[in-house]
């Protein structure tokens, strides 16, 4: 085995932002850790209720079939079975979920259980509740479902063809949404170009970040008030409630989501509403707490995948000197059997329309279709990652075909440091960054100057050697107004997040977030921000773990998604803490007989700046207002319990031109990857790897690093083995971790990291959202493989996921991949 070396223990520190006094910027101990290290975290499946019932879903073995009958009688006869729920009941008790799309997607009907038809393997058809988990599964096997199989549709490319089966007859088409995005002047760019590089087809594979904890909930129904409480791991409850309440025909306040610890989400826990509605209906029907735990195979087959996307008929306009003028492409997105969060993926990519590059002429025809596969969900890097893979593939194919150096093509075409803030062709504003600098750091980390020597060395050992770069942006803080570009009727725009900070009776500072963390350390970073403002230590700050609707500390877009906590979440924390600090000063001023401006907060006290001896401990302030308030002035209008809604500065986009600022911040990731390929087998190994990140001001560098490591590992997994392929019958062929190989500790290459801090001019802390990454690892691995294979017939890497068999195919038949590439020169 090769000796694995690790990154330098500390990341390479190259350029830091302005030094700042205080807790922000320091690696303080994580508040979440102690409970998690002792096995005392509370995940939804850890919660039990007296006499609760366990839910097991009866799932479709067919990818596409009509349901002729569902007979639950034998299941109900089994001792210990509490009850069942079928699609027929669901169709009576609920309305279809709200769809975001215009027609035809708008007409697709999606219920908690299959009604009339099944459209993917694993789709829930009925549910059984029993006294134990095992019994529920036993009983589910006794439910008899009679299916009439229909032809399945498993290839998005034939979804619109004449003979294709139509999944949703009501919609009359498999198309969810389609439209054209046209910015600049593609024809002029093509006319000006010295070369037009054409690529027939690229394919971004299905995969998902597969959080280690699967989904689930424990649902209690309160008959007296008609309210449901869901102890769960939904990562975006606000939006979950928007789907659920109207479908269940109840007010939104009837739905209470409670989370504490969540075992990873990565976007895969956003579309849980169908399951949760079924559980809510069962809790009400059976008047009993019910609990549903999804198992791994269920998660892989029937929860959510990342969007699969085909890019067809790509044309790229290039000048002889390597200047990129623009590109056009037809994008075909496969969202599986139901749209759910879609068609948002049809616009989210536009946040990063030009990638990291300065080209101005871009035309994208975008179509999204349904197929008989698992529905999708906004998986880490959602929709931007697919598009950035396209732009990075374009760079490397163009360089490859025109004999240019991929490093130089990037540097020539990157948006330049001095051009920030930079407005993209579609009106997005890249806030800050220095891509070329990041690339230099990445190249230094993999010792790029010696790369040719290394190539020679590898070849002497019989290996093919390649290096590749991935340049991406992690756009954070959505402007939900972009949804109106898809559907002008939608009443969504802007964004918001909430935090509440209070000073309690014993002087305790308590922070309540609207977010729903799944490992992103919100308790820790919030405490850093609060303690800097209040002049105390993060240890003095209690941040409530998790989310609870009834804390009333959330707003319409609350949740943890889209790389935005450092902006929206911490923005809200800062806002609320500023309010609280103001009130504390007001109160102290009253007590100490001075003006609020004469007061400072320091060392856990409110004291007179001029006379620090005149100090009130926080406990005194809390006690006075909460329990000893007689005699306080009538006009002292304070609560010491401050709720703040952070609202980023967004305008509604121009719907006609599909133009506007779709997101607030852009973190940068530039990765470099070095591979060695065994030409006899197609087996390859990543022998060196560097990830350079720029997310502006880093509140907690160690946590930022951790996110970089994780995003990189997921990208490497997606580039090498992680894929969700289906057979012609619509069976998923990688339904669990046996065949779906995620990176293990031995699989991970040595990882070197570096960073710079380009502070965002648009955020209160100079920080940018980060965490998703743009899938830079996928792009870098694809590029490195293409480089390595180049001496063997110059094949083109056309898939995002390249398991060994695909590499072997490229080695065997390089011409097949080259057939789709053509250069037309002037």
């Amino acid at each position, binding site marked *: *085995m090769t000796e694995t070396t690790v990154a330098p223990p500390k990341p390479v520190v190259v350029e830091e932002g302005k030094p700042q006094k205080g807790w922000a910027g320091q690696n303080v101990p994580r508040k979440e850790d102690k409970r998690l290290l002792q096995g005392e975290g509370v995940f939804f499946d850890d919660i039990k209720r007296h006499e609760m019932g366990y839910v097991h879903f009866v799932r479709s073995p067919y990818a596409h079939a009509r349901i002729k009958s569902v007979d639950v009688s034998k299941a109900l006869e089994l001792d210990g079975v509490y009850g069942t729920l079928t699609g027929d009941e669901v169709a009576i008790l609920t309305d279809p979920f709200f769809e975001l799309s215009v027609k035809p997607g708008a007409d697709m009907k999606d219920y908690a259980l299959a009604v009339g038809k099944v459209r993917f393997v694993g789709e829930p058809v009925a549910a059984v509740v029993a006294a134990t*988990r*095992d019994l529920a*599964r*036993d009983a589910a*096997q006794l439910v008899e479902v009679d299916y009439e199989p229909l032809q399945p549709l498993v290839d998005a490319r034939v979804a619109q063809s004449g003979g294709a089966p139509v999944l949703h007859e009501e919609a009359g088409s498999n198309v969810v949404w389609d439209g054209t995005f046209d910015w600049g002047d593609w024809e002029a760019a093509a006319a000006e170009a010295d070369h037009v590089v054409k690529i027939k087809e690229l394919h971004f594979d299905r995969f998902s970040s597969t959080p280690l904890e699967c989904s689930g909930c424990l649902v209690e129904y309160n008959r007296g008030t008609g309210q449901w409480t869901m102890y769960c791991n939904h990562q975006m409850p606000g939006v979950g409630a928007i789907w659920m309440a109207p479908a269940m025909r109840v007010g939104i306040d009837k739905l209470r989501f409670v989370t504490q610890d969540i075992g990873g989400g990565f976007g895969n826990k956003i579309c849980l509403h169908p399951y949760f509605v079924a559980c809510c209906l069962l809790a009400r029907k059976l008047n009993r707490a019910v609990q549903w735990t999804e*198992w791994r*195979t269920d998660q892989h087959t029937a929860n959510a995948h990342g969007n699969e996307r085909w890019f067809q008929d790509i044309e790229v306009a290039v000048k002889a000197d390597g200047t990129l003028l623009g590109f056009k492409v037809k994008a075909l997105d496969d969202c599986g059997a139901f749209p759910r969060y879609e068609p948002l993926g049809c616009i989210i990519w536009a946040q990063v329309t030009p990638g990291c590059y300065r080209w101005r002429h871009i035309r994208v025809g975008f179509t999204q279709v349904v197929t008989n596969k698992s529905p999708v969900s906004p998986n880490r890097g959602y929709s931007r990652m697919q598009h950035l893979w396209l732009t990075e593939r374009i760079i490397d194919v163009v360089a490859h075909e025109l004999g240019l150096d991929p490093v130089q093509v990037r540097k020539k075409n990157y948006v330049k440091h001095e051009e920030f803030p930079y407005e993209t062709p579609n009106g997005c504003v890249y806030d800050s960054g220095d891509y070329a600098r990041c690339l230099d750091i990445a190249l230094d980390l993999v010792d790029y100057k010696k790369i040719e020597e290394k190539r020679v060395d590898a070849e002497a050992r019989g290996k093919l050697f390649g290096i590749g770069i991935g340049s991406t942006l992690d756009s954070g803080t959505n402007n939900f107004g972009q949804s109106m570009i898809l559907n002008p009727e939608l009443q969504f725009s802007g964004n918001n997040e909430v935090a509440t900070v209070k000073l309690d009776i014993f002087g305790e500072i308590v922070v309540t977030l609207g977010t729903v963390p799944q490992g992103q350390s919100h308790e820790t970073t919030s405490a850093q921000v609060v303690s800097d403002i209040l002049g105390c230590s993060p240890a003095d700050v209690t941040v409530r773990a998790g989310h609870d609707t009834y804390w009333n500390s959330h707003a319409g877009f609350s949740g943890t998604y889209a790389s935005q906590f450092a902006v929206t979440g911490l923005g809200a924390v800062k806002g609320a803490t500023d309010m609280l600090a103001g009130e504390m000063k007001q109160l102290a001023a009253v007590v100490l007989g001075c003006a609020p401006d004469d007061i400072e907060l320091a060392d856990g006290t409110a004291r007179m700046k001029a006379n620090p001896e005149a100090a009130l401990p926080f406990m005194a302030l809390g006690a006075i207002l909460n329990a000893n308030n007689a005699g306080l002035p009538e006009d002292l209008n304070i609560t010491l319990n401050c709720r703040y809604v952070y609202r980023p500065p967004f305008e509604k986009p121009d719907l006609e031109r599909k133009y506007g600022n779709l997101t607030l911040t852009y973190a940068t990731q530039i990765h470099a990857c070095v591979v060695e390929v065994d030409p*006899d*087998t*197609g*087996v390859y190994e990543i022998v060196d790897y560097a990830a350079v990140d720029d997310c502006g001001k880093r509140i907690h560098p160690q946590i930022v690093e951790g996110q970089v490591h994780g995003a990189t590992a997921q990208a490497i997994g997606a580039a*090498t*083995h992680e894929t969700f*392929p289906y057979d012609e019958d619509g069976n998923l*062929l*990688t339904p669990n971790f*046996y*065949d779906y*190989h995620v*990176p*293990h500790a*031995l*699989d991970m290459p040595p990882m070197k990291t570096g960073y710079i801090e380009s502070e965002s001019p648009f955020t209160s802390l100079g920080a940018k959202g980060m965490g998703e990454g743009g899938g830079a690892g996928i792009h870098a691995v694809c590029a490195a493989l293409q480089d390595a294979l180049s001496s063997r017939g110059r094949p083109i890497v056309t898939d995002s996921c390249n*398991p*060994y*068999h695909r590499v*072997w*195919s490229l080695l065997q038949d390089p011409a097949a991949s080259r057939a789709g590439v053509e250069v037309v020169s002037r």
Partner: protein
Amino acid sequence: MLLPEVGYARPSTVDEAVHVLASHDGARPLAGGQTILNVMKSRAAAPDVLVDLQDLDELRGIELAADGTLVLGAMATYSEVIASAEARARPILGEVCAQIADVQVRNRGTVGGNICSNDPTNHLPPLLVALGTTMTIASSAGERTVPAEEFFVGVYATAAGPGELLTKISIPAGKGDGFAAVTIGKDGTCIVSAAASLDGDAPRVVVGCVHGVPVLVRPDGADEEAVRRAVRGANLEPPSDVHASADYRRHLAEVVAARAVQRARTRRS
């Protein structure tokens, strides 16, 4: 997770074990459980009774006989083989066991379980055929021995039939062995594997993952071309799956067979 209902018996002797196995149709031995319990989780197949072999000390040992024969009890775990001084008489065994799955699985999984489950991706069936192993099978009628190449009769099927129990694995003396595999990730599941032994007359080369049972080929020489020619000559019809097409497996079979032989040669020299 959530197994089907099953009966459980925990005999304390081999005699008791074969008695329970014989008297219940659908009874299966439970050795390390690292395969059968997973199959039961998926409810893809369901034995009626699990016969837990953990108390059968008779199946535990790893012994080196005077003639150099290494005798592994069927319940020897991979970890025990890796740690065993006796097993180093045939060093390939410990080396291959150390590549199987992970620490947890190696601590529980047994040599007997690995070969009796005979999943085509398992490491030990091809290895043991290459090493010229003999299996001892007990039943109420007594003991019989079966050479490894006759032991494997199909996917999940071996010569140890209903009412029978594999008790011992006897490996003759030798050192000229090699193993090579292409796996999913490092030390992952085998896509194609090959074991080779150069002890005796002609090389014994055995390819795994290409058929329901390990495929023994006898090249006429130990050079790469001879090995590849012999594998080609076996006209393999391997299965296609998500990790490899039949063509790719056929190709890999040649490559890993040649590598296994090369490693065997290096070791012998």
